[in-house]
């Protein structure tokens, strides 16, 4: 057993786990933060994506002990962070995913939304190519990619104050 002092979603949390436990296992089975999903568990699918110091990483391949002293953000922390920053309701990324129907089963969504959030924090006005590139490590097996890309575009447009007509991605994808 190893004592772990972690910073997760702005909270300082202490717990203990064996040295070989991953961050994902500690989040889910020690801290009860089940928003991060256990998918392939070997770095293919992106369902376990969390932000460490603002950058998307795979928590299934990160040993928990190695994120001590770093800031971890999971999907569970996105809405509280938005409210702390003076916003109302859920994070705009979560809102947009909801309104665009960017989900079916929802399993990939936490990772997908965190990758999108990290992109928008880094680049507030990404191009379509940049959006696709940023989400390249998150797999959606219900194939809802069209609406997912639409949702990210919606966030960008609304942040700019535009009246929003979601882009029709299908035309472009069929070319």
């Amino acid at each position, binding site marked *: 057993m190893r004592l772990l002092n972690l910073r997760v979603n702005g909270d300082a949390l202490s717990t203990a786990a064996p*040295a*070989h*436990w991953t961050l994902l296992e500690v989040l889910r089975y020690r801290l009860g933060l089940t928003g991060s999903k256990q998918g392939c568990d*070997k770095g293919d699918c992106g369902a376990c994506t969390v932000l460490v110091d603002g950058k998307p*990483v795979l928590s299934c391949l*990160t040993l928990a002990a*190695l994120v001590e002293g770093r800031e971890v953000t999971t999907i569970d922390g996105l809405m509280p962070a938005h409210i702390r920053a003076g916003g109302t309701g859920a994070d705009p990324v979560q809102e947009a995913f909801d309104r665009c129907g960017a989900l079916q089963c929802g399993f990939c969504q936490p990772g997908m939304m965190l990758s999108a959030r990290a992109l928008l924090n880094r680049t507030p006005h990404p191009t379509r190519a940049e959006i696709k590139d940023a989400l390249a*490590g998150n797999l959606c097996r219900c194939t809802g990619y069209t609406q997912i890309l639409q949702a990210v575009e919606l966030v960008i447009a609304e942040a700019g104050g535009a009246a929003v007509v979601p882009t029709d991605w299908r035309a472009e994808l069929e070319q």
Partner: protein
Amino acid sequence: MLRCPKFELATPTSVAAATRLLADAGPSAMILAGGTDVMPNLKHELFTPALVVSLARIPELNGIRRAEDGSLVIGAMTTIEAVAANSQVRERATVLAQAASLIAGPQLRTMGTLGGNVLLETRCQWYNQSYFWRQALGFCIKKDGTKCHVVEGGAKCVAAASNDSAPALMTLDAELHFESVEGRRSVRIEEFWLGDGVFNKKINAGEILVEITLPSTPSGHRSAYGKLRERGSIDFPLLGVAARLDLGKDERVERADLVITALAARPHRVQRAGEILRGTQVGSEDFVTRVGELARLAHKQCHPLENIPGDAPWRKAMVAVYARRTLLAAAAGTGPVHHL
């Protein structure tokens, strides 16, 4: 759900402390860099170390700087993302920046390190599987068994070198620097590989890869990387092609180099590349013809096996296509060559 086997974790904060730990622990210790390759392998019980030594808390291993003699020095723990984005690497070692930008997906590039990619474990579809999967089929030559499932009756492991950085660094004449309690050792990457899929690197017990140096490139240096993979967004290479052209007066080729990986245990340098292209003027009809000739030669020299996904005959056919496109991209100063 895949879980790591039990191990103890050490997080030294200096190279000296890390080498001491490795020397004391002996063969039961294993080094962990970014973890993107070691962690799945641990979960598949391909490695079962008693002690894992993480290099994540050693700041001296991180960063890219230019040495006094003009060479680029890249710390082994510099992330793939940082290598791909670095302006000096992009400008002076384009092929490495392009190769780095095509490694895995964004999360894995954020976590993975250049040193880790250089030392990547060879891959095979009969090896990179869970313990349950492997024992159900019958273990293979690379791990726990005596039979090769790729080459019938094969006595030698043919697991594939799958690191995109390796061919790129070979065209750049990179040098690898190791540290251990015995001191420092440097080796040219060209001489680093062994033709054995079980373990394809000449690295001694207790050594840590600390730095990778790239000698300065001439002003006419052009290079590009081409990568074939199943999904354009994330996979390991089914073929990796690094091309280098050094141009002299009138844009004539002075030096040409072509290295191809994801075939067998070590990257393959295409023989006679320099001989075929030397003296030809980039953009001329002669150049395009010679590039075609070199691509056909590469096709003849490369023998993809059924060791990684993708039909071997298709991958062989693609050798010529990717060699030609990557050489033309290098000449034009574009790239990377990528199907998506």
